[in-house]
């Protein structure tokens, strides 16, 4: 009798795991089929023969797909670094420096985080065009940073709040300045918070679509999700290339999620619950 609920539990867990993973498994299987295998009817469930030819063609025939992944990396890393450094400073000020209006500023940051990205598009496109920032890494990095800064400030502020105040007070007694306290005491103590926030911001930036679509209009500057979605355009839809490129574009994200699942989980729930 006692085993009954355990059995149901494992059944339900198993079911959720299978449902979560099957699209990715199907994607990977598709990417290892020959063109004939992909368009076979009845459907070929298992690749027969298994081939890595599609992966080879990404290097030889459609190198632009690797370029998209590289662009995503540059933008993602740039955005993460900028977001953490700018957001870290203000998160510290708003949570620890007993600033006037800190509460009001936090609410302002929270409300702007809810702006729909589409609402930003007409004006951002126009000003980026006038400023010559279209199709530039720095432009998209700046745009992504603006988009994800509110989340970063909230996350880091809530992390700083968990650190004991006494250390800072002691340091101030010793005559240390604010910047030195921030860099030599706060930063080393709060790196787990920075890691969690940084990983989540990187994933956000990697996955971001509307701004990346509109602000990078040249094919060579597209990020991975946008480039692959638009590949190859109107007439044909070569699934062998698309599924292979998709595997390559999601692998970095899947690896990060798998390795840092605890940090990411903690970061996500801390950011949304409070």
């Amino acid at each position, binding site marked *: 009798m006692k085993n009954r609920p355990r059995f149901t539990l494992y059944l339900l867990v198993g079911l959720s795991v299978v449902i979560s993973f099957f699209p990715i498994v199907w994607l990977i299987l598709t990417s290892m089929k020959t063109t004939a295998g992909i368009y076979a009817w009845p459907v070929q469930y298992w690749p027969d023969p298994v081939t890595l030819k599609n992966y080879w063609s990404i290097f030889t025939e459609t190198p632009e797909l690797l370029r998209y992944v590289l662009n995503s990396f540059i933008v993602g890393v740039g955005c993460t670094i900028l977001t953490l450094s*700018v957001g870290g400073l*203000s998160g510290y000020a708003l949570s620890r420096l007993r600033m006037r209006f800190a509460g009001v500023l936090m609410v302002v940051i929270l*409300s702007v985080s809810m702006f*729909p990205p*589409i*609402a930003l598009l007409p004006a951002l496109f126009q000003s980026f065009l006038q400023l010559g920032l279209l199709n530039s890494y720095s432009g998209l990095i700046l745009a992504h940073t603006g988009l994800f800064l509110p989340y970063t400030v909230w996350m880091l502020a809530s992390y700083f709040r968990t650190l004991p105040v006494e250390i800072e007070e002691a340091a101030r007694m010793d005559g240390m300045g604010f910047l030195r306290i921030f860099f030599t005491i706060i930063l080393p103590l709060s790196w787990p918070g920075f890691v969690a926030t940084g990983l989540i911001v990187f994933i956000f930036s990697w996955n971001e679509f509307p701004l990346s679509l509109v602000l990078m209009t040249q094919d060579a500057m597209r990020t991975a999700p946008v480039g692959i979605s638009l590949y190859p355009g109107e007439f044909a839809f070569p699934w062998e290339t698309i599924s292979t490129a998709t595997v390559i574009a999601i692998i970095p994200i899947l690896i990060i999620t798998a390795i840092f*699942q605890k940090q990411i989980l903690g970061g996500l729930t801390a950011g949304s619950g409070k």
Partner: protein
Amino acid sequence: MITLNTLERRTQFVGLGFVTPTFLIIALILIYPVVQSIILSVGQSSVDGFEPYQFVGLKHYAALMVDDRFWRSLSVTLIFTAISIPLELILGVGLALLMNETFRGKGLARLAVLFPWALPTALNALIWRWMYNADYGLFNAVGLESGLISEPMNWLGDETLAMASMVIVSVWKTSSFMALIILAGLQSIPRDLYEAGRMDGMSRWQEFREITLPLLKGSIMVALIIRSMDALRTFELPFSLTDGGPDSATETLSLYAYKVIFEFVEFNAGAAIVVVQFAVIFALSLLYILTLRGKD
């Protein structure tokens, strides 16, 4: 000699310095564009913004009122939100309850909850588009072979079916996020409440209804509002899955606004759509902030 007063003043000064870069970037990337969208929506201007701007009043809003495609996209957005959010909530609560149990293989289960969240929506939509494919798709193959369906279905080609297909993809991807927020709420419920309940001889269902659910109300509210705001601005899902088709049956407000702005190249008309959408979402976000306030 530093007096308290100068220390206080210095703190304010340094704090200001620390927050300035953040507010500059936010003003530049978030606030200015929204204000500019409002200005664009009541005027006429060239796409590159170099021609002089001309104020035209509410002309573009009046045009929207008689634009069938606008109303259609608004209703598509609302229907999509109204169907997917309750489904997500039920699944989310279920998943959260599961994840709150202790069992072997919990790491794998946690990964299964995180994976759908971590995938880029646009690429996720492509993967499903291929599984939905009417000629070579996985769903038709499995459905036919198992006898669940008697003939191949055109998942993305029929108006009702396309909406249902889009809802399924969205629910698959985002129930897990709903579950994460609710799980955080679950873990903050004190254990001894359940022990007390057990003493009183409560059944599992009674425990859920009388302890868990009332204490989860806050987290559920937060999850609902965050997810609704996301659903109301859904863009890349229909962009990659159906391109809004068939016949605008899955064209969300965001997708329609994008097409008006960048395909029909009518910045001012598009800005009006964007402002309407913004107003809806902003009202919801105020509700969210008030809810959060109430929690503290």
